[in-house]
Structures are given as structure tokens and as C-alpha cells.
């Protein structure tokens, strides 16, 4: 057994006086796929932000790829080959599509040599981005922005990829392609943590899954177990 790619113990985090996470424990084996599900406001986005250093860890420990992350800045964490697709597609609105994508790799010594290859992968997944290479990101459609946000994280050639609601705003066909691509990436040895409202697809892809409620893990199991769980089905799957 190799050591786990991500270990989280007793993680607490929040915004100002509001505490959101109240002691989250996770352990994700290298190369495996973890799905995080939970209600709106449960703290899923906050969890990913804390893991990538965008908000400080208040208590507890985080080890990613064998490195303790607590106290590191977001820039230092991403250099450690942790990629993040943030919720709500935060792009550089005045830069072109190509510049946004390259920004994912340009500042990372580890990713630069593989930038060509990764860009080709991104363009294969999202042909639209190749067509619009020179367009200013601020004028893209909602879905096109989402493609750039995903693409930029892939450009950073991560070993651990944290993805927040990737299907948001994508057409059903393209969302499906993105899930397939995430499965593919995981099968190539990248550890993936996925937060996604399409619980069906995300549990199908996942080796392991956790249910987050009010900032703590309430339930955990394999993807298949949770998919079969009547309570999970009632809360997250019926429509």
C-alpha cells in the first residue's frame, strides 16, 4: 500500500466569525476517486477551499501527497501539484481563453514541461475552447467559462485534483463528457475529489464517498454503497 494522497483530520474552517467545518476526517488513497455529497450550504465548497489554502485551516491537520498543508499559502499548495476547479468559474476576465489556460501551468515548474500535452487534452475535451482561443474570457458564455475553469486546473498537471460542481452550466452532453474525462483522469493515477450535484454520476464514478452535513461527515462508504442507501437516494437522487 502506498500512503494516502489526502489525509484530513479534525479539520475546522470558516469565514470570519462563522465556523462552517466542525471536524472533518477523510482519507483518500492515491489514485482513487472520492465523491463528496451534501445539501446546499453543508460546507462542501468550504472544504475544498480549506484544502487549497484559499481559507485558513483553524484546527486539525491536512496532508496532501505526503506534505502537511497547514499554514501554506494557496500558491505553495498548488505548486505541490494540487489542482482546484473552483465553484463559480473564477477566471481572469480580461485575459484570453488561451492565456487563462496557460496561467494554470506557467507558474508551476512541474507543469510547464507538460503544458503542450495538457493543452491538447483540454482542447480534445472542449473543442469549443480551441475555436475560441483568442476570445476574452469575460465575454464567454456561462458554460464556456466553466470549460476554461476545468481546463485551467487540468493544465496544472495535478496529482490531486479537487473539483467543485464541474457540471454546473454545462449542457447534458458536455457534462457527460466531463464525467467521463474525470473517470479517465483518475484511472491514470490522479487522485480526484469531486463535489457535484449530479449525485448519480458522481457516485457511479467514485471509489469512496462521504455525505457532508452541517460541516461534518455524516456517512461514508463506497460509491456503490451510498448509491444503494435508501436515505441517500431519498435525499439526493429522486427528482
Amino acid at each position, binding site marked *: 500500500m502506498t500512503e494516502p494522497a489526502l489525509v484530513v483530520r479534525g479539520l*475546522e474552517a*470558516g469565514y470570519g*466569525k*462563522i*465556523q*462552517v467545518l*466542525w*471536524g472533518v476526517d477523510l482519507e483518500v488513497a492515491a489514485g482513487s476517486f472520492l465523491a463528496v455529497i451534501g*445539501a*446546499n*450550504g*453543508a460546507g462542501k465548497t468550504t472544504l475544498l477551499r480549506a484544502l487549497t489554502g484559499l481559507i*485558513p485551516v*483553524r*484546527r486539525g491537520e491536512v496532508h496532501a501527497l505526503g506534505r502537511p498543508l497547514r499554514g501554506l499559502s494557496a500558491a505553495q499548495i498548488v505548486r505541490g501539484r494540487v489542482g482546484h476547479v473552483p465553484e463559480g468559474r473564477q477566471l481572469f476576465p480580461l485575459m484570453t481563453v488561451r492565456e487563462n489556460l496557460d496561467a494554470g501551468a506557467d507558474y508551476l515548474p512541474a507543469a510547464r514541461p507538460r503544458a503542450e500535452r495538457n493543452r491538447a487534452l483540454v482542447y480534445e475535451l472542449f473543442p469549443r475552447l480551441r475555436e475560441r482561443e483568442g476570445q476574452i474570457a469575460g465575454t464567454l458564455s456561462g458554460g464556456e467559462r466553466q470549460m476554461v475553469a476545468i481546463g485551467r486546473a487540468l493544465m496544472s498537471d495535478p496529482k490531486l485534483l479537487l473539483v467543485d460542481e464541474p457540471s454546473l452550466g454545462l449542457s447534458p452532453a458536455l457534462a457527460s463528457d466531463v464525467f467521463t474525462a474525470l473517470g479517465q483522469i483518475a484511472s491514470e493515477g490522479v487522485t480526484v475529489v469531486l463535489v457535484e450535484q449530479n449525485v448519480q454520476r458522481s457516485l457511479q464514478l467514485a471509489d469512496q464517498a462521504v*455525505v457532508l*452535513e*452541517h*460541516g*461534518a461527515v*455524516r*456517512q461514508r462508504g463506497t460509491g456503490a454503497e451510498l448509491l444503494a*442507501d435508501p*436515505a*441517500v437516494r*431519498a*435525499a439526493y437522487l429522486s427528482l
Partner: protein
Amino acid sequence: MKRRTVPWDLVLVALVAVAAWFVPEAMKALFGRASISYLSLVINALSLAVLALSWDMLARTGQLSLAHAAFYGLGAYTTALLLKHLAWPIWIGIPLGGVVAVGFAVLLGSLTLRLRAIYFAIATLAFAEVLKSLVHNLPTEFAGGNAGMNVAPLFRPQFVAGQMERWEVAFLRNEAYFYVYAGLLVATVLASIVLQRSRLRHAFIAIRTNEDVAGVMGVRPARVKLLAFAVSSLFVGMLGAVEAHRVGSVLPDQSFAVATTVLALVTPIFGGLYTTLGPIVGAIGLSSVQELLKRSLSEGYLIGYGLVLVLSILFMPRGVVGVIGRALRRRRTNAQRRAIAMAGGGAPDEGASEPGAPPEPPARPGGTA
């Protein structure tokens, strides 16, 4: 349903205005002859407050103007020209100075409506500079050219032998100006409070943060921006006119000085932008700092002044008032905030469809950081 509360801001203005009534006499009693120069300092602070607050009223719509000196200068030149060419009552130049400034402001405002941020700033700066050189080049017989014009003082207190001492003449003059400046500031403050209490406050913030969305919500950005321009220039125009009388002259380089614009925007930034109190606190703070530095450093006081500004912007990005406001807001308790966060966090059907037993909200004490 809406609570009717005491209008504390208006009460405060009334109290301060009443207290101000006694300031000159109190200073005279306390400091005697020295009260003349103290009164001058207070007048300078009042003047800076009007300048800053009028600029802030425009800035609230997101229009960061670099033309404030132009409207100040227009007010000053209006009163000077009236005095020189027409035998109208001396006081008329002050309101008319405001009106002329408003006219030019509406013109400039309509031309710059579509410009955002930096382009707006550049356009307004260009306007101010063009106006300044225009005034330079007006016929000398008409507006005095580079040499400017003399402006008669508003007050000429007479020395009455036996009833007062010599220095009291200067005191009486400063006392009179003090009331004029205080009155102008009170008027500016009242305008600012009216704006802040009306629905325009919401329109201002909406336009400032996202003009497109404001429009979609039904706000008419063009009207609101022009209105702010007009109100702002009215007060700075009147200030320019009053100052022309107090200083006794107008000159293109002095009445249209870029330094006036710089003070107009630095003061609210120091005190706290987009509030009534901020620019006033900024004016009091900056005038005091300047005076203290002048006394202690004499020569290099401007360097010290610059340093204070840089440090305050670094450590108080929302100004003095922002720092105080934040301290007050902290008092909302952690428990309250958490209750709010929880209530909003879940869907309206919270609990009904939770997996398993209803979750217990973690009841641990609040965060550490």
C-alpha cells in the same frame, strides 16, 4: 412593520450646530488674541470638510472625479466676475457660483456618462485642465488673465475706539467667516444625509457596484449620476465663491489648482468613503495632522504628511470611520451569526429529507481565529 426610529444623524447635526454657535466666543474667552489664528484653523478644517463631503457625494455613484477643482474655481470666478462687472449685491455671487458650477457639471456629466473608472477620471481631469487654460486666456480686461482679480471681502468689521481692542477687529472678521463656513457645511451635511436616507442611497450603491444590473433593476443610471454631479458641484461651487471672498483674490493657478482635487479625494479616503461622517472625520484628522506636523517639523512637514496618508491607506483601507464601524459590527455575537448561517444553509425543507436521523447542529463553542 418598519420601525420608526429616532433620526440620530439629524439630532446630532442639530446639536453640533447649536454648539458651534458658541465656539467663537468660547475660543475668545479661552485664548484671547490667539483665538484669531485658532479660528482660522477651524475655518480651514470646515472648508476641507465641505470640499471632501461634496466630492464624496459624487463618488458614491462610482464617479471618481478629478474635476473637483474646476467646480471650485468656477464658483470663485463667478463671484469675482460679478463683482467686477455688475453692481449686484456681494452675497449673490455665492449661490450663483454654485449654480454656474452645476451647469458645467451637468454638461461634463452628460459627456462622461458612458465612461467607466479610469476613462472617467482621465476625462474629468482633462476637463479641469482645459478649463484652467481657458481662464488663463480670457481677455485680461474681462477676467484679469494670469494676474487674476481682486475680490472684496464679505465682512469689514469697523474698529470702534474705546469699545474694543485693535485685535478684536480681526477676530470679528474670522468669527463672521466661521459662521458662513459652518452654515455651508451644515447645508452640505444635510444634503448628504437626505441622500443617504432616501432611496437614492440604494441607487448610488447599485450603480457604483454594477451599473448594468442596476439598470435591469429599474434604476436610471444616467439621471442618478447627473443628480449626484449637480449636488456635488453645487456645494463645491459655493465653497469656491466663499473662499474667493475670504482670500481676497482669484487666480487661475490657485482657483483651479490640482491640489484642490487631490485634497477633495484624499480626505474622504482617509476618513472613510461613501459616508457623511467619513469626509468630516477625514477633514478634522488631516487638518490636525497637518498643523501638528507643521509645528514640529516646520520644513519637511509635507513628507510627514505624505507618510501619514500612505500608512493610513495601508492600514485603514476603509478609513477611520470604517475601522470604527467594523469594531461595532463585531459585537454581533458569534451565536447570532451562526444561527443565520444555519438557517440559510439548508433548503426550506431542511430536516424533512435528511438521510437518517435529523442532524444535530454541532454545538461546539465558536471558532478560534
